[in-house]
């Protein structure tokens, strides 16, 4: 049985997000082999009813977005469709410019974002982890659930994604200093 088929079986069976390092461990192969098999699998599934969704280290299988309407007919799940303006803007920032700390989100939005971040965390649309560059704060990033709700298989499928990422990268090198000052001043995270 090919590595690709084994990965497919595991992802199907687990029915939830699995990390690349979990696959490495379970299948006793290198990260490179997993990555290349995931690529192959992704390519083979491109025209099928089931696709690979990927965000950072996490992968899962999901139905093709084109089949969304059909599944909606037969699902009993309660679907969430409503996103307010604050939620939309915060998610946009996190997807296109993320991962971001709260201080940076507050800075761009001009308001305190703790409630909206909490709301998005509870809905499972974003997740947070301790910032490796500054252990006193969290950084926020998109979840696979967010991608699922957007009907995209990876963040790069969003329009203008690459262009904006590049702009942000250029901008960030200039902004690093400002942001550090900002987070030192208002960096109380709860």
């Amino acid at each position, binding site marked *: 049985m090919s590595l690709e088929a084994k990965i497919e079986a595991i992802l*199907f*069976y687990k*029915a*939830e997000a699995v990390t690349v390092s979990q696959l490495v461990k379970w299948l006793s192969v290198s990260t490179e082999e997993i990555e290349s098999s995931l690529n192959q699998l992704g390519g083979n599934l491109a025209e099928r009813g089931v*696709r690979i*969704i990927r965000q950072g280290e996490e992968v*899962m*299988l*999901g*139905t*093709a*977005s*084109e089949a*969304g*309407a059909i*599944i*909606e007919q037969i*699902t009993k*799940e309660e*679907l*969430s*469709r*409503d*996103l307010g*303006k*604050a939620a*939309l*803007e915060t*998610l*946009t*920032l996190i*997807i*296109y*410019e993320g991962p971001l700390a709260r201080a940076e989100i507050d*800075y*761009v*939005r*001009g*308001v*305190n974002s*703790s*409630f909206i971040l*909490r709301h998005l965390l509870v809905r499972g649309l974003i997740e947070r982890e301790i910032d490796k560059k500054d252990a006193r704060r969290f950084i926020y990033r998109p979840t696979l659930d967010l*991608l*699922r*709700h*957007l*009907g*995209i*298989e990876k963040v790069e499928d*969003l*329009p*203008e994604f690459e262009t*904006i990422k590049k702009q942000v990268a250029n901008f960030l090198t200039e*902004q690093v200093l*400002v942001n550090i000052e900002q987070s030192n*001043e*208002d960096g*109380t995270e*709860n």
Partner: protein
Amino acid sequence: MEENFRVKIADFEGPLDLLLNLIEKRKMHISQVSLAQVADGYVNYLKNQENQSMELMANFIMVASTLMLIKSLALLPGLQLSEEEKESVSDLEDRLKRLQRVRDLSRHLKERFGKDIIFGREEGSAPVIVFSPTREITLPGLFEAVKRLLNNLPTKEIIPQTIIKKVISLEEVISDLAERVSRALKMSFGDFVKDKKDKVNIIVSFLGMLELVKQGAINIEQKAHFAEIEMENKSVGVPRY
């Protein structure tokens, strides 16, 4: 926004949202020029807010102080700004541009969210259930965990002290700025605002004074109090502020 004073502050998500709306309403690009133009509208808007929380107003007032700088600069190009002031001016511009970009991009999310959902497998497709406790599951272990949980319950956000401090020092900023403007103009702003306790009113007064300068309504030779200057001028009349 001058046309509609009844719009509530809660309709906007903070000062940048309000500013961006004012600029976009006039179909202008974000620049120091457009910011100087909407400064009055912004402050007027603030003036008509009642019973708002300290934190909410604090955010708006901080931006108002930067707008005053921008407007002063637009009217008095010779005005010297400190490094910090220069930075706060370009900072405000940058933040607005970033917010505008985020807002433009957010339509991509709005168009897609909840439309063609990708589904994982239905719940219930879970593997067979086998009772498998771990060694962490003991009464003391659980007690520890619940203590941790209680400690981590979110609390109401407290206004960061820094914001309050910044707002309090705003009065100093204004009087300092007024002093510099008046040195340039040979007049005093201090007496004009001496009976005004409300920070927003002081800002409004300051912008009002700048407006009078712009309209040529103030006799800059005169060394008297503002009220007297005002009376001397028939064409403008009493400031609406």
